[in-house]
């Protein structure tokens, strides 16, 4: 690893050696999975075997796996595609119910629908841990004409939050959405590999996955999509992936993604226990060094991702802290960043009701399969002096 202490696995985590192997093996094989000849059939077989492995890892049927270029595309396909197809069935369906703590891939797709496609958006209320409750969803669904949900196109709420790590009660939410006959999508990019994600049991209509957060490669993801829903495609072309997502299949990436998914799902319980214990040590060490640091998200370990620790450091700017830790070889994240790389106050922390100044001084530490006790010790030694310095620099 380039950086001595890598505490940003939620941004991306190193590829598993098994996934690297699967990918490099396929890189030397020729064959378009849509071709009819032997080379094409070999490629197609690799894709379908991968589809089966991925489906098995996440409780889906193989036919429910739609490969995409990553999480962002899968989110856009679900949100825009379901909005379009549901509205096409009934023009009254223009209301979108979304959690305000979504990743920008969902958030901005929803905003786009609002601006360009006549959508009205109900942002679902969240509690101080950033969690949407099923009764809040029910109340929002019943806000339609005649107290019904006839005007709702879709519901979207993430499985676990990418910044503060809070796990949402997705099955409970999906059950409510189903009651009203509304499809629900969930972005499980961060949850996969850490929380138990079972698409079949979840009651969801669509679920987003990505390769590079679970030890697979970049540039590959999937939308798990129930057979009953046919979102309008974003990409038109060769009709691959149930004609929902055209484009030549990336066989090496798909093969590696499936290997990583299978391994991550198989090791999940053990990994969660180990990384959770390490995370608890990290949280304790940060609190020791900085007693007034505020842990964001659910303090109950059962309610948050085991590899996530997210803090507000009062009186500090997140970008000052990041610079100071970076200079000591410690990689972490301030949360979200815009195109120009400007740190913005976290919309997640703001939505959870925190003071705007606290939303600026946030850092996310996220662990992964290569994390060690030495990583935590290095942070424990560095965080106190860094916070002291950043406080002197203040809020500009």
């Amino acid at each position: 690893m380039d950086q001595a202490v890598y505490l940003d696995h939620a941004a991306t985590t190193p590829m598993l050696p098994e996934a690297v192997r699967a990918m490099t093996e396929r890189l030397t094989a020729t064959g378009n999975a849509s071709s009819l000849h032997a080379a094409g059939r070999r490629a197609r077989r690799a894709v379908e075997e991968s589809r089966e492995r991925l489906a098995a890892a996440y409780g889906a049927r193989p036919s429910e796996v739609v490969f995409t270029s990553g999480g962002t595309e899968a989110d856009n396909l679900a949100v825009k595609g379901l909005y379009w197809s549901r509205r096409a069935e009934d023009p009254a369906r223009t209301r979108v119910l979304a959690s305000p703590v979504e990743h920008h891939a969902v958030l901005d797709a929803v905003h786009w629908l609002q601006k360009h496609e006549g959508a009205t958006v109900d942002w679902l209320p969240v509690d101080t841990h950033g969690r949407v409750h099923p009764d809040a969803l029910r109340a929002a669904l019943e806000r339609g004409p005649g107290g019904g949900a006839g005007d709702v196109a879709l519901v979207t709420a993430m499985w676990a939050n990418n910044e503060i790590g809070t796990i949402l009660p997705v099955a409970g939410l999906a059950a409510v959405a189903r009651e009203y006959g509304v499809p629900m999508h969930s972005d499980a990019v961060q949850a996969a590999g850490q929380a138990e994600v079972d698409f079949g049991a979840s009651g969801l209509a669509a679920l987003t996955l990505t390769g590079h957060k679970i030890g697979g490669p970049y540039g590959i993801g999937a939308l798990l999509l129930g057979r009953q829903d046919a979102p309008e495609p974003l990409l038109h072309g060769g009709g691959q992936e149930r004609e929902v997502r055209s484009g030549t299949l990336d066989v090496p990436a798909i093969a590696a993604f499936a290997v990583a998914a299978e391994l991550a799902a198989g090791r999940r319980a053990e990994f969660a226990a180990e990384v959770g214990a390490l995370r608890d040590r990290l949280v304790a060490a940060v609190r020791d060094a900085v007693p007034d640091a505020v842990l964001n998200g659910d303090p109950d370990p059962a309610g948050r991702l085991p590899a996530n620790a997210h803090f507000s450091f009062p009186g500090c700017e997140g970008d000052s802290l990041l610079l100071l830790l970076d200079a000591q070889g410690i990689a972490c994240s301030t949360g979200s960043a815009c195109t120009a790389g400007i740190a913005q106050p976290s919309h997640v922390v703001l939505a959870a009701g925190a003071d705007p100044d606290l939303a600026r001084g946030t850092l996310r530490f996220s662990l992964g399969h290569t994390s060690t006790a030495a990583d935590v010790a290095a942070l424990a030694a560095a965080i106190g002096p860094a916070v002291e310095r950043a406080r002197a620099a203040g809020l500009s």
Partner: protein
Amino acid sequence: MTPRVTHTARPARLKVLAAMSGGVDSAVAAARAAAAGHDVTGVHLALSANPQSFRTGARGCCTIEDSHDARRAADVIGIPFYVWDLAERFREDVVEDFVSEYAAGRTPNPCLRCNEKIKFAALLDKALALGFDAVCTGHYAKVVTREDGSRELHRAADAAKDQSYVLGVLDERQLAHAMFPLGETETTKAEIRAEAAERGLFVAKKPDSHDICFIADGDTQGFLARRLGTAEGDVVDESGARVGTHSGAYGFTVGQRKGLALGTPAPDGRPRYVLDISPVDNTVTVGPAASLDVEALTAISPRWCGTPPAGPGGYTAQLRAHGGETAVTAEVVGGELRVAFAAPVRGVAPGQAVVLYDGTRVVGSATIASTRRAGAPAA
């Protein structure tokens, strides 16, 4: 290469924060600081609250392209790079100041203001607090360390490129933490570009920015009209006779000739210039070039690089960023700077900075508050 200025008081290896605009000068400055062995970190200042709306290609310093160019330069130099959002401070201290100065009939220099309030205040303070020793920029000016360890600001080695005027607002504390690697060598712009290319910095061919960075289209009048609205008023001659109308007194600068759109020609048929702007009654006074001659001025809010002038003394003064220098006698009276010109000068606008020099050394700067026309009785 001329002999390097000795920085006896400085430790050999400094922690340097290099402000990188995305242009060639600041990229070469950062590269030189790194090559000199300093521990350099690059930072691009995001000065617009909404960078997308300032998207105009390679001009100014507020575009996403510029932040990208700065990042790529930092990659090549091999230094860490961050973008810092100082948009709110910039809006308050530079943009709003610019607008209110114009509204008051004065002609501000926002670059000076930015150096004083942003680069060598907000940025410098943050840098020092975070453990940096100095802020490095791509300005052409020279910091000289005296025997006693105090600092002086001098014109750049290459007088043609000198930018000490826009740094004249810096006091000694600010100078003590300023680094201008470009001012120390007699390098032409072409040579800087060649050096950038040699160092692998692809910004080598990037055009210079000349305009005010927060007015991306270069249309200052349009910007002011949007901010201040239009207010029709009279253009009068020196006798007070109405010779035309204007759509807002703020739109003019003393000494301006173009854009007056006067219907009535001057009696002598000679060109007329803006002599005075009165925002109170929204009136612009015009007159012949000779009436622009100023023999003295009073300037307020002086800032000194070192000791202020004790009594009346002979100096040179520069009145505009790209202006020449002129011989003056200057003294400080009651906290104000009084400057008398050896020979009358033209086009002195209230709001502009007067920077005093002793040889190549910057003595200090102040904001021009009022002028005395040649031949007018002493105020």
